[in-house]
């Protein structure tokens, strides 16, 4: 296969679905590549199949069910759709290589829209590599895609909206956590208050705040122990989790459990845009790197656009509008519409996206991760693949290492199968802290293809022309 398209969209979450739908409805030749087996991304994961299970839909709530409309509109749009496609290389010339069913394929396009979404921030703490430790998002995916829930008491630890949403959905589904360890820092609560007015001033902002209050109230009503201002978490066990020790305020606690869900917010998935050479900058408010984009999602690489949480965390509804904005811009690029027409068509989406972002600053400040998560202690593993601890990174900085690429060469951190996805942000933070400089100055791993492991045989067999 070696096909030419007007637009290639990567990722079938809200941004990718909305972009591909709009483009197809406007008669552009568009193909959507997604590594998942079905549409929805992570937020609407399993949305088409969940319709067969009404009780599951009830538990997951109306914000999840909303995704069915997006999926249906995409299906009706006529956009080409390739699930199970692992994109492993995108070039600045807009050649997209992907692996599907054991062989690699090439598609080319005039524009590429990356809608690769977010990933959960790494939560490096003692014991986080043990079987029995999963992210809150991972547990939510099991619930959405297969209706699988913990079958025994478990502990939820961390901070951020997803954590509380998971608890709410679990309670509705009849799975009850033994305890919720809320790591939100006390200082954050006061700082966040300053940003409350801008959230309250907007209708979507008020709705988001109300949902948050409902979640917290539901948790309180449930009677599940909620430990607040939790720190110094240590997950215990030799070959699997046996318990979790932590501090809440000034009191030390220990709970026996075999399953721990961790969550400290989400950050943009960086791998694909970085591999193409898209410029990134440190976002101090969200404590993460985000690609440098214009109002339409154009990255620094001509013809490569980024939409949705991959471009900065804004949530699923904002992502949908960002996807449509990128699609309008792609239509302009293709010569289907001029700039004035694009601007006119995009008015509603621009306004709606702004509205969806009204609560964001409040959330960013309230759920800002603690130092110990961003820059863990020396004995904590930061590179899960090569099993490299934070102290080793600090050691090479003491020997003069200035950045993550030299650290990677010296330590093998980031050389394993995850290709630095989980340790990259942490290694940059550790080096920035040790050197006393900013994250932008430290930089990030140089990301190269293949973005997913490809076998030697598959590479040898591919048609390159």
């Amino acid at each position, binding site marked *: 296969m070696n096909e030419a398209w007007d637009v290639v969209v990567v990722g079938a979450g809200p941004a990718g679905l909305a972009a591909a739908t709009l483009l197809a409805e406007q008669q552009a030749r568009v193909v959507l590549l997604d590594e998942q087996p079905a549409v929805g991304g992570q937020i609407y994961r399993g949305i088409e199949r969940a319709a067969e299970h009404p009780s599951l839909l009830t538990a997951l709530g109306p914000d999840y069910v909303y995704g069915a409309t997006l999926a249906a509109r995409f299906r009706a749009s006529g956009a080409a759709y390739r699930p199970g496609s692992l994109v492993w290389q995108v070039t600045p010339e807009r050649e997209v290589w992907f692996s599907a069913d054991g062989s690699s394929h090439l598609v080319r396009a005039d524009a590429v829209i990356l809608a690769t979404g977010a990933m959960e921030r790494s939560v490096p703490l003692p014991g986080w590599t043990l079987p029995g430790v999963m992210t809150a998002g991972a547990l939510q995916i099991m619930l959405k895609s297969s209706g699988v829930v913990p079958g025994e008491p478990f502990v939820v630890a961390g901070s951020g909206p997803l954590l509380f949403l998971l608890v709410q959905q679990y309670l509705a589904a009849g799975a009850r956590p033994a305890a919720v360890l809320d790591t939100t820092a006390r200082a954050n609560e006061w700082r966040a208050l300053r940003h409350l007015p801008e959230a309250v001033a907007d209708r979507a902002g008020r709705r988001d705040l109300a949902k948050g209050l409902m979640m917290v109230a539901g948790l309180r009503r449930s009677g599940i122990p909620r430990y607040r201002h939790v720190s110094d978490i240590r997950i215990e066990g030799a070959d699997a989790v046996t318990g979790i020790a932590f501090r809440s305020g000034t009191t030390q606690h220990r709970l026996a459990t075999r399953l721990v869900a961790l969550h400290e917010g989400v950050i943009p998935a960086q791998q694909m845009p970085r591999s193409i050479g898209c410029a990134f900058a440190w976002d101090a408010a969200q404590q993460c790197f985000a690609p440098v984009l214009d109002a339409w999602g154009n990255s620094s690489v001509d013809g490569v656009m980024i939409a949705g949480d991959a471009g900065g965390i804004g949530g699923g509804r904002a992502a949908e509008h960002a996807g449509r904005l990128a699609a309008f811009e792609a239509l302009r690029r293709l010569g289907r519409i001029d700039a004035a027409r694009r601007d006119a068509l995009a008015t509603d989406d621009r306004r709606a996206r702004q509205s969806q972002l009204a609560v964001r600053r409040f959330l960013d400040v309230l759920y800002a991760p603690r130092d110990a998560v961003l820059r863990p202690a020396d004995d904590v593993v930061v590179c899960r693949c090569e099993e490299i601890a934070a102290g080793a990174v600090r050691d090479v900085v003491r020997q003069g290492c*200035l950045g993550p690429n030299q650290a990677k060469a010296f330590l093998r951190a980031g050389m394993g199968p995850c290709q630095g996805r989980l340790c990259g942000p942490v290694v940059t933070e550790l080096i920035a802290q040790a050197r006393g400089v900013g994250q932008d100055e430290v930089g990030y791993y140089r990301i190269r293809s293949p973005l997913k492991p490809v*076998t030697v045989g598959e590479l040898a067999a591919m048609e390159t022309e």
Partner: protein
Amino acid sequence: MGYDLIVIGGGLVGGAIAWGAATKGASVALLDQGDIAYRAARGNFGLVWVQSKGAGMPAYAHWTRTSSELWPDLAGAMAGATGVDVALRQPGGLAFCLSDEEMASRTALLHRMHNESGDIGTRMLGRDEVRSMVPGLGDRVVGASFCPIDGHANPLYLLRALHAALLQHDGAYLPGRTVDAIDAAPHSFTVRCGAERFTCEKLVIAAGLGSRDLAPMVGLSMPVTPLRGQILVTERLRPFLDYATHVIRQTAEGSVMLGDSQEDVGFDTATSAMVMQDIAARNVAVFPALKDASIVRVWAALRVMSPDGFPIYEQSAQYPGAFATTCHSGVTLAGAHALALAPAILAGELPERFAPFSSRRFDVPSA
């Protein structure tokens, strides 16, 4: 405050010379660039390779052998000083031939090198003999050349160890410096990096591709150009290949490195699907079972090539005390650079054996 020696370039060549000089008691500063640089030392294949080095230049063949013999001392010193195991293995090396024509030309090359620079035990292996040494070879492998003194090592750990060992000998490792200018006088140099000034009696330029612009500042010529190489790296696999080979190397960690391309593309370190396919196909022909191994990393780096591909070592006639060095075999030659070249530089005179490596060899007008 001045240094006895400043080395410009913190790669394998500069790092080896700086550490070697520091162990002799010199006060040494090693100037290096930042995290992102055209750093050949981070793109190396990791061979300590003798068998085909120096055809047409016996001095290079002998220099390579010297380095190979010094390598165990270097590896031992690194482990002793820093605790870093640079994973030196010298079990012999194989260059596989995939056709009778390749066998014939390889045989001719070894014959020529034997006549020019002496016997190091290199010999051709036929179809059956190479299979008795290496299991899993594909049908297309018709034979190989074998050299018993070839080997391999981890170039990244070597670089790390050289930097760490330099610090232990009170050397200064000064990263994040870009040299803007060098004020030169005989046995007195001032290196300018932004607002900073570093002075020294002896200066070594080992800046890889950057040497081209720096060397003329001290009256030397370094006509080097980039040659891109791409390398594919697999997941960690159980050990199956101890030998060094010219296209495939299994590291101490178990990863298998598949190389490597030679592409004249200027200062472009991108990877390309076409070259990746070519490398993959060639290596599957050698080891068919590798087809199921996953590639987890691919990188491209720029080799530093002189016009004839051989190293350049030279002291400035105009500004004695300034030296320039370059080669594209920073791993193989690390033993010699650290333990033979560095003392000669400190002594202020490159011995006679270095005469053939002068850049003046490129001045000869072509007939």
